[in-house]
């Protein structure tokens, strides 16, 4: 039974998680007025009448921004394990800090070259 005790809060959580939305839906069904009129099929945009269709093309600039962001965002991932193991006393490799330092320096220089390239190519400017 110990297992059940451990999982009891979780069970309660799940039960509530299911009960609340289902209950709300049923409650709304019970009390909401029903009616069919054309305005009901218009997408809701903050209470205003929508302008144009929702299926428009987005500016391609978003795409280049997203790409540049994605690259730098993911590359930052490597900084964390590096930072954790940099001064780790358990690592007994000779000259470890020096090597780690040089490696991270090279890594950042390479990223920087990419950044300079994107900048000079105008990927960071918003052209309309």
């Amino acid at each position: 039974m110990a297992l059940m005790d451990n999982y009891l809060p979780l069970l309660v959580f799940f039960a509530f998680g299911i009960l609340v939305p289902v209950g709300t839906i049923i409650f709304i069904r019970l009390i909401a007025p029903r009616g069919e009129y054309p305005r009901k099929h218009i997408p809701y945009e903050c209470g205003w009448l929508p302008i144009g269709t929702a299926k428009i093309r987005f500016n391609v600039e978003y795409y280049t921004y997203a790409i540049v962001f994605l690259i730098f965002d993911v590359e930052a991932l490597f900084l964390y394990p590096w930072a954790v193991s940099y001064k780790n006393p358990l690592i007994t490799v000779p000259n470890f800090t020096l090597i780690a330092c040089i490696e991270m320096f090279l890594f950042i220089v390479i990223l920087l070259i990419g950044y300079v390239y994107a900048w000079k190519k105008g990927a960071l400017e918003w052209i309309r």
Partner: protein
Amino acid sequence: MIPVMYVLALAMTVFAIGVFGMVSARSGIRMMMSIELMLNSANINLVAFSNYHDDISGQVFALFSIALAAAEAVVGFAILLMIFRHKGAINVDTINILRW
């Protein structure tokens, strides 16, 4: 601790979903999403095995593969964008100049 078998089953399920998506998708974006799923199923495996063997290198491997997946996605979307410029759609059925 969750048995490693369960995680393996999860990873294989995700991989199978990815393969199914790859085979059935008509849209290039959807194919890219399926590839991401497949790569991530391998990541699940790596992290689970890393925990199981009590060895850090699996997690490092997963980190590298996440970064590589991002780089791959960027290249893939760039190619899809060029296809969109040429064809006005990213439907893979329209990509059929080269055959036999």
